[in-house]
């Protein structure tokens, strides 16, 4: 028993984070392979949601199909598990019907950028208030390791036995060019930073995209000769990225070929649902 702290001096008590509050225990264990990055991203997401102060009923988590898209099954919010590539369209419907909900879309790089690429650019263009978390593992994990639109050139996949010859997308560049008002990148390796980035994305009004580099050791890792899941994290996530905060201080050779981490773009422009509502009000008044 310790004496109660003086009111002006806050005592720092470390309370273990209660993940169970946000999980559906009867849906566990999850399907993810040992070493998969998706679980780390889930953890960061839950902590960011907790910090945001929204109640569980105010949150709606929407996904498409893929290993990453299995996330809504495990979390105790309003959840919708939809079709491969279509999560953003379903989410747009939810947001328009219930603008007061905080809608978070959990999607894979294949889901968001290949089969659902069209929805991705148009969502960003509208700047509708959705938080879009793209789990970028550079592969179609769920279907057994086909190359995806983020697979680096030269990398192996079951569909690129001699190395991919397709130029990958940079999801952040695409989001920014399409009009998203918040664009950031994180990795599963930098888990505390990721938590902060996701929190900032949730608090932003407008389309906020977080491209999250994480590892699929089972397919991308094995086929590209990474020794272990941690080896992948070190090479791709730790050494393969640079924080935007440091980029100016580093010599060009230390930045070249690396992905930037952190908030890459942020602007305030009208959000779609608000514009929609104000248009209705304006026209209603005119009569």
């Amino acid at each position, binding site marked *: 028993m310790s004496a109660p702290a003086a009111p002006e001096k806050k005592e720092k008590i470390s309370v273990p984070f209660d993940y169970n509050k946000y999980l559906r225990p009867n849906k566990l264990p999850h399907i993810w392979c040992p070493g998969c990055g998706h679980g780390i991203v889930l953890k960061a997401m839950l902590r960011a949601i907790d910090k945001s102060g929204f109640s569980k009923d105010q949150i709606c988590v929407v996904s498409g*199909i893929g290993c990453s898209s299995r996330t809504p099954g495990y979390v105790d919010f309003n959840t919708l598990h939809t*079709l*491969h590539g279509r999560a953003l369209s379903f989410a747009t419907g939810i947001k328009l019907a219930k603008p007061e909900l905080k809608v978070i879309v959990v999607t894979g790089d294949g889901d968001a950028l290949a*089969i659902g690429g069209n929805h991705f650019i148009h969502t960003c263009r509208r700047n509708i208030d959705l938080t879009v978390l793209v789990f970028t593992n550079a592969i179609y994990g769920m*279907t*057994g390791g086909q*190359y995806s639109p983020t697979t680096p050139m030269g990398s192996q996949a079951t*569909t690129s036995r001699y190395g991919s010859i397709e130029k990958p997308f940079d999801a952040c560049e695409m989001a920014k060019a399409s009009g998203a008002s918040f664009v950031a990148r994180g990795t599963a390796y930098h888990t505390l930073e990721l938590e902060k980035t996701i929190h900032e994305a949730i608090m932003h009004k407008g389309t906020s995209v977080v491209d999250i580099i994480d590892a699929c050791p089972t397919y991308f890792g094995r086929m590209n000769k990474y020794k272990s899941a941690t080896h992948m994290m070190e090479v791709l996530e730790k050494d393969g990225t640079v924080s935007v905060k440091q980029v100016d201080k580093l010599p060009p050779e230390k930045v070249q070929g690396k992905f930037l981490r952190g908030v890459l773009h942020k602007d305030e422009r009208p959000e779609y649902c608000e514009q929609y509502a104000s248009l209705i009000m304006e026209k209603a008044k005119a009569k």
Partner: protein
Amino acid sequence: MAITMTKGQTGLTGNAAIAIAMKQIDPDVCAAYPITPSTAVIEDFSSFVADGKVTTELITVESEHSAMSACIGASAAGARVMTATSSQGLALMWEMLYIASGMRLPIILTNVNRALSAPINIHCDHSDSMGARDAGWIQLYSETVQEAYDNLIQAVRIAEDKNVLLPAMVCFDGFITSHAIENITLLEDEEVKKFVGEYRADRYLLDTDRPSTYGAMSLPDVYIEFKHQQSQAMAGAKDVVVEIGKEFGRKFGRTYGLFDSYRLEDAETAIVILNSAAGTTKVAVDELRKQGKKVGALRPRLFRPFPFKEIAGELSHVKAVAVLDRVDSMSGFGGPLFNEVRSALYDNEKRPRVFSRIYGLGGRDYKVKDALGVFGELEKVVETGKVETLQKYITL
């Protein structure tokens, strides 16, 4: 994956056998997008492409919508084209399925049957291909790995026949046939090559001597004529299926027809059922035959066009028929196979009693005891002359 390689006999999964058939056919173009449980077809085939075993251009597009679109473009340009998919993949191709058949392009598609969402399920039922049954594609259903392999090779000839010129879909059961290893006899590469021959499209894009156009606007003055021709080609495809099935038998010893009859000659009751579940049903038939009961089974191989006359003839002496569907057409009136069979029997002098049973949705097991249960119900119908329950779900 092959486990044994004795002379002529190989242990193969359905997907591996289909990939080998595709390798032997060596199409010009294959455009595909992965989906469980058909993924391994293209996965194996992409290795053949990478190893230089085929001359095919493999296009790994970003969705099935694009896959079928690319297939259509390539086929219209005169190429022999193949692809494979399942479930939502086929559903996403819907819009293009009609384009392929309307343009009379003999594209060959392997559909590994899987349930449609929602809720999401990766296991076998026939809701995917049955949903596409009116898209103008020839549909062949396969009980075993051997039949899937043989059907794919024959499908090329059927679709490309100049009196048919329609796309064709070869269907078999997800996981049950696609992933289980069965013993099969492969043909030699040369035999397949000779059997399918070289594809020479009569009219194709980029033919500078005879320029043509596909899919151009057809208003009320001609549209119905196009559809009439397509309908006639589809109806006529039945005879081509029979001919090619016979030719295949003459050459390789395995003859195929419109359907597979099992102990039907003197049967009083029968189950009509598609794909792998027919095997289970046959076990039940054998068990009941041992007890002296006159039972049989009929497994349609060709579903589109539907061989209504032949099936009505085959069942003409049977007193009661149960049609089992691994899909519900949600019409409130039984499954699609039930509707076709029952309608086909309408013109028979002596119509059997017919009822519908829906089974095995989303991969629920269909066991010998389930077939025995249905035969029990059929027996009662023969005794009383009355169908108590016209339609219901079994295997619940």
